[in-house]
């Protein structure tokens, strides 16, 4: 009935030790880690020394910032390089300012490929070389889609590998409460058809199936773009998805409008979403999953990427209080396989140095990935096939990691790859307008019009 009780207990135990220490929990030479890769790295770069500065989007301490520090600390130890980490809530803007003023950090880490493409075009990024491309293709699951993510046109107009993908997220997840499902006798659906049947059953039982929240300050609307992307991957071929991202397939093509309409069939029905359709655009994306945890539950399902677990209430346990299932494919579209939508951060060199180059080499070692995988309460996933999945700190993460490794089709978040004015602009606002009353065709026309104006 509850398959992961032990996992829940172990994550809780790990969570308790989490406050005690971070890097100290992992002792070199112990555990199932690939220590030999660190030894080999140390043999080559052991006497490097010097300084290295980082600019990252991570600020949770304890949390992603301290977990990242643990990853870096093993690099420091191996090479003797002293490092400095930095971040701020407006890290994208500050990265832009620092690059414009000529004082960027050695290594800049951003989750937006579109922004990095801009920096690359300004000549601000260092080419990591063809061997980096080859390495990613060979060692990452669905490697070519990952290496393509870090390839941009440089100042000279040539496409090169300017960024290294590290830390992945799976977006095709639906979160639910196993206890609530058990009490009502609901089963995890295996197909999209089953998901819609479950939605109707929940409504018939007097419940509300979904919690959807699109509010995210200046980025309001982005959670809806994930919905559309996931639905695109489940109704159209990956080739159509790629064509859509590059606008060879127009935004107002019937194929895209169909995906928007499916999303509309869910959120534009007051009975389907907690608080009704009017609340969708005004509920903060981080607050919306809390409806799963209220008593009585405000909703039974929430679609969001793997990182959302950090927004769940303190003390909630994976496996009993919450769990997730893979957003299933349509039974009627069996030839599309099991597509996975994801996103991730990209690491780029913004001020070249030997230490910065060595750090990119360090990221190629499995150990750099495993240290973060083993951090308690992390949301770190990796597509690195050489990293040992046994070191993931929880079963939930391991299952997500396996979704990433086993994807038959993997596609990166389309809105992050579209031009900034679309993917971080009219696509967001178009989705908010759609939820607030525009028809799917009108919203799609509006977004396509802004693309035509680029």
């Amino acid at each position, binding site marked *: *009935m*509850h398959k992961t*009780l032990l996992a829940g207990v172990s994550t809780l135990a790990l969570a308790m030790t989490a406050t005690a220490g971070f890097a100290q929990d992992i002792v070199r030479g112990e555990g199932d880690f690939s220590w030999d890769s660190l030894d080999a790295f140390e043999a080559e770069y052991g006497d490097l020394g010097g300084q290295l*500065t980082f600019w990252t*989007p*991570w*600020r*949770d*301490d304890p*949390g*992603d*910032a*301290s977990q990242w520090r643990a990853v870096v600390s093993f690099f420091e130890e191996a090479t003797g390089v002293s490092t*400095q*980490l*930095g*971040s*701020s*809530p407006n890290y994208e803007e*500050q990265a832009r*300012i*620092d690059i*414009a*003023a*000529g*004082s960027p*950090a050695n290594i800049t880490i951003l989750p937006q490929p579109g922004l990095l493409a801009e920096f690359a075009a300004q000549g601000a990024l260092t080419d990591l070389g063809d061997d980096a491309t080859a390495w990613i293709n060979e060692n990452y699951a669905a490697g070519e889609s990952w290496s393509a993510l870090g390839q941009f046109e440089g100042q000279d107009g040539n496409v090169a590998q300017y960024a290294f993908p590290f830390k992945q997220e799976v977006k095709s997840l639906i979160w639910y*409460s196993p*206890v*609530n499902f058990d*009490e*009502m006798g609901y089963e995890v659906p295996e197909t999209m058809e089953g998901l819609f049947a479950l939605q109707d059953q929940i409504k018939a039982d*007097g*419940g509300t199936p979904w919690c959807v929240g699109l509010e995210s300050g200046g980025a309001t609307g982005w959670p809806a773009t994930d919905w559309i992307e996931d639905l695109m991957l489940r109704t159209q071929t990956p080739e159509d998805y790629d064509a859509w991202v590059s606008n060879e397939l127009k935004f107002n093509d019937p194929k895209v409008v169909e995906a928007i309409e499916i999303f509309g069939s869910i959120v534009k029905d007051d009975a389907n979403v907690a608080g009704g359709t009017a609340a969708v655009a005004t509920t903060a994306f*981080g607050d919306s999953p809390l409806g799963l945890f*209220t*008593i*009585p*539950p405000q909703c039974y399902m929430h679609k969001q990427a793997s*990182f959302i677990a*950090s*927004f769940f*209430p*303190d003390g909630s346990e994976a496996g009993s209080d919450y769990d997730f299932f893979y957003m299933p494919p349509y039974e009627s579209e069996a030839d599309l396989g099991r597509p996975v939508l994801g996103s991730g951060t990209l690491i780029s060199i913004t001020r070249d140095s030997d230490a910065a180059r060595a750090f990119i080499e360090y990221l190629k070692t499995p150990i750099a990935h495993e240290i973060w995988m083993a951090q308690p309460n992390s949301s770190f996933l990796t597509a690195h096939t050489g990293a040992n999945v046994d070191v993931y700190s929880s079963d939930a993460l391991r299952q997500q990691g396996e979704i990433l490794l086993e994807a038959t089709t993997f596609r990166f978040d389309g809105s992050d790859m579209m031009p900034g004015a679309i993917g971080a602009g009219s696509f967001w606002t178009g989705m908010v307008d759609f939820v607030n009353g525009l028809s799917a065709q009108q919203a799609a026309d509006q977004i396509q019009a802004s693309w035509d104006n680029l």
Partner: protein
Amino acid sequence: MSTVSASPAAPAATAEPASAFARLRIGRIAANLALLLIVALWTFPTAGLLISSVRDADQLALSGWWTSLTTSEATGAAALGTAADQTDEDGQYVISGDILADGTSFTVSAVGITSREPGAFGVGEPVEMRDGGILTVDETGAYRWTSATPFAHERGPRVYYVASEPPRFTFDNYVSVLTANGIGQSFINSLTVAIPATVVPILIAAFAAYALAWMSFPGRGILVAIIVGLLVVPLQMSLIPILRIYNGIALTFGGEAKGYLGVWLAHTAFGLPLAIFLLRNYMVGLPREIMESARMDGATHFQIFVTMVLPLSFPALASFAIFQFLWVWNDLLVALIFLGSQDTELVLTGRLVNLLGTRGNNWELLTAGAFVSMIVPLIVFFSLQRYFVRGLLAGSVKGG
């Protein structure tokens, strides 16, 4: 006739001071009321922030600070014991325990066995469990689950409860802020930025103000006008060009691209126009006669400045020092740009805003952070405030 005219005059004479008195009182009451209203308006948000900062994070997320003193109704869930916890009491199998966590002071008012109806049964009412047996829960959360047959379940089923929860106050937010990684370092960084960035502009501005007020040279008026004009240049516009110039110069001389020198210079430059403007206006108001007699006695400009103008201008200097210190201490933008926000250089405001977390989910810490960062400006303000009032009045009353 005289009596006729006198008789109304007499009451009028007595009434006049009375009505003036009344008018005075009404005026004063109105003024006091207005003052009270303004004080209330200004302290209201701060009071809310203070109350929020000592509230429990979970309660804070659910309700506003004005409800902090009322008892709130909460629903919760707990897992009952497993088969391993059962005892055999005269052929009755019993699992007992407490559904409330230790240290909570809830009063349970209802229980339920499904999340959909968390309060389906009253306290003390026997509840038939799906796994068999009868459960009773009392007000304190103690439960007793009895069955005629042995329990066999390995996982404790959930029960839900509705409980009234007394207000919870805690200093956890303050503890988290004060023990956050690097907060002490940031405190020192902020002082390292703020003290020179206050002293240096005052020093320069005092010299400049004296020259602009009491030394006659061609173009003095235009120079004053230009400096006043600089007051309206938005600093946001000049950030990148200035940083780029600074980086260029610093790197040529082998210095660091970003650093304390840069942030001191930036704050000095951004503070100077206002400083010169304020101090010049104050110094112009100093009595001309003293300067002239000093000049006649053979004092140089420097002697006049050091021995007479500086001591006389102390209120203006102090009030500007407060302005500048508060602005530099509370500044985030200039520090982030010119000093950067690497861990070792981050100023206090930057550290506090980073406490929010990667996705802004720890906002309750900001309430406590606001009060922590307020301490230093309050000390500065109260130690210099007697000069502050005099400085604000600078030039309004001409001394002879």
